[in-house]
């Protein structure tokens, strides 16, 4: 399926199924990304910035970086446990 073919009709008021599908997928992807980012902010602030100072320290920054990697990894672990892990 070629999602990037241009609309077959020249009229912009014509409903185009491919354009609609692309737009829906894009908007969903954006919504998922925003929700994920918000979760990352909440979790990593909680774990890494325990006593906010006048700036982010080096250790706070590296903690945040590790936190993001771990959270992405955790998402993968959960996803596999739910959908493709061995039967428990």
């Amino acid at each position: 399926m070629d999602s990037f073919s241009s609309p077959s009709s020249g009229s912009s008021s014509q409903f185009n199924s491919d354009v609609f599908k692309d737009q829906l997928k894009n908007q969903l992807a954006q919504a998922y990304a925003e929700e994920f980012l918000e979760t990352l902010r909440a979790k990593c602030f909680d774990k890494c910035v325990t006593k906010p100072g006048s700036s982010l320290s080096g250790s706070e920054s590296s903690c945040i970086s590790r936190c993001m990697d771990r959270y992405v990894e955790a998402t993968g672990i959960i996803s596999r446990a739910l959908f493709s892990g061995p039967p428990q």
Partner: protein
Amino acid sequence: MDPSAINSPELLQFINQEKERAMINEMVAKLTTVCWDKCITSTPGSKFSSSEQSCLSNCARRYLDMSALIMKRFQNMQ
């Protein structure tokens, strides 16, 4: 505009697939935040310990077990 284009079975199926994907995404996202809180108790390291990994994995599966249990008991309450 041709209204029948919106009701095509192909489009409806596409929308249903995206709905299902959204539900799955929501479930994974919610479980990840719950299990993260339960299992990752210290400052995040450069990798998970094996106990953190199994905790996360167990957490997701036990949540499903619990969900099935709740459904069963709830039906008995009716």
